């Protein structure tokens, strides 16, 4: 059976290595590695988004209501992380911290800071939290006055108002901007490959190095990223459809008078 398979594959393999502009068999032979790379990419991206998102909610509230003590430091934090490239932040955490003896001797070194995966997760989380904080703050500040007054009139306390009226509506308003942040984070996660992690791009570069190829690894990585982005944008489309339903133009149905909207 194995012999037979080989005889069928032989001409395809020869074409792939010879006449074909892309050695696609090199990619197919290592497809399992690419799938593992996709897992590393997705895991890092979504853990960072989850942790960064949770971190950003209290920060955004403190910024939106100009907390007398916290507003300044949070502004510095978001300014730093939005004003510097993710690559530099990752290098600083991975190579930079490793230069200090007291860090290498600390409790955190062995389980966390010596691991490339943790360094990447920390950098990505802090980065996405900074961006999310700022546009969530914008969404909170854009809450219509009427909503707050109505909540007050209904007798809601300060925190109940935030929890039940302001935050849910701010999330809705921030949703389209957040889909961009998710896709940027996915693209930004290629930085992981520069600190030895085998994410999608890491596997692509490994493949290029292993077979001395020019772009097969990059093309395979590109296709995988495109598939992931397609999936993510579909999910957000569906969410926007569901949660921003009140902003959708009404669809007129035949035979009935058009609904009057103001």
């Amino acid at each position, binding site marked *: 059976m194995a012999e037979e398979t080989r005889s069928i594959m032989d001409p395809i393999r020869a074409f792939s290595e010879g006449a074909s502009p892309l050695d696609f068999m090199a990619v197919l032979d290592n497809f399992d590695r690419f799938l593992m790379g996709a897992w590393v990419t997705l895991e890092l991206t979504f853990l960072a988004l989850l942790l960064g998102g949770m971190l950003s909610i209290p920060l955004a509230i403190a910024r939106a209501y100009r907390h007398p003590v916290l507003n300044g430091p949070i502004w510095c934090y978001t300014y730093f992380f939005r004003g510097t490239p993710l690559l530099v932040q990752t290098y600083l955490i991975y*190579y930079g911290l490793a230069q200090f003896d007291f860090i*290498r001797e600390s409790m955190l070194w062995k389980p966390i800071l010596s691991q490339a995966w943790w360094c990447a997760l920390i950098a990505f989380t802090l980065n996405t939290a900074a961006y999310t904080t700022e546009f969530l703050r914008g969404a909170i500040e854009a809450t219509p006055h009427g909503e707050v007054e109505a909540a007050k009139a209904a007798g809601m306390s300060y925190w109940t108002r935030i929890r039940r009226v302001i935050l849910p509506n701010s999330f809705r308003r921030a949703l389209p901007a957040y889909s961009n942040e998710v896709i940027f984070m996915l693209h930004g996660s290629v930085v992981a490959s520069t600190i*030895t992690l085998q994410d999608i791009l890491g596997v692509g570069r490994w493949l*290029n*190095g*292993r077979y*001395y190829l020019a772009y097969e690894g990059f093309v395979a990585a590109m296709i995988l990223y495109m598939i992931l982005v397609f999936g993510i944008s579909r999910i957000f489309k569906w969410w926007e459809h569901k949660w921003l339903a009140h902003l959708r133009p009404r669809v007129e149905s035949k035979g009935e008078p058009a609904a009057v909207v103001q």
Partner: protein
Amino acid sequence: MLLKKLGLAAAAGAFALGLSMQAQAEDVLRIGVEGAYPPFSEKTASGELIGFDIDIANALCEEMGRKCELVEQDWDGIIPALLAKKYDAIIASMSITEERKKRVDFTIKYYNTPAKFVAAEGTDLSDTPESLAGKRIGVQRGTIHQCYMEKMFPNAELVLYGTQEEVFQDLGAGRLDAQISDSIQALEGFLNTDAGKGYAFLGGDQFDLECHGEGAGIAVRKGEDKLRAAFNDAIKAIRANGTYAKINAKYFDFDIYGAPAGS
């Protein structure tokens, strides 16, 4: 009639221009080097390229009577950039291996030094597949050492880096159990420096013909036989006239050419 004449003149002009451009392209020989592989190839603080490979490249150019331009290129893309004609030859300590011969042609070797592991002094590890199974071993991506580790030490955890300098940096930071690279490069680029204190070679020479090949050669695009022959003659010439020995002595206190070719 006039139009026809004009057309002819234009064609002749274009032809002459083509010829002169060709002549110009022949004048300057562009050579790809890495610039991050001391003492073979590195950059000084002022951005100047120095090292054994660089001196050899200049000596060969002088021998061939060609004007050369050195082009710096990351190791990852050093063969692709040759194929994309960003330069015409690679002089970057590139080992002559069967896998690479599928993409490029090689000259005869210009040096040959063995590969070795480096680990912390006094480690319990040894250079056997059993001992290194599950251990984190640093390797520069796309090198003979990646090939060797994947073939001979499949159970070790390979950690891949873009440059050899990053491998040593992470070995020094304690993120790796060991690393494997060219022994001379490891000695001069790490062990003999401050950063390499507390580290030593682990075990003996590592060799596998399929992965390591017969030594470092100069890579040219497939079919560029004239250029390859010119390099071969030049290598033999600088070996014979003492230039090679002089460059060798500048960097190393032993002969790095290794056993004569073919042995």
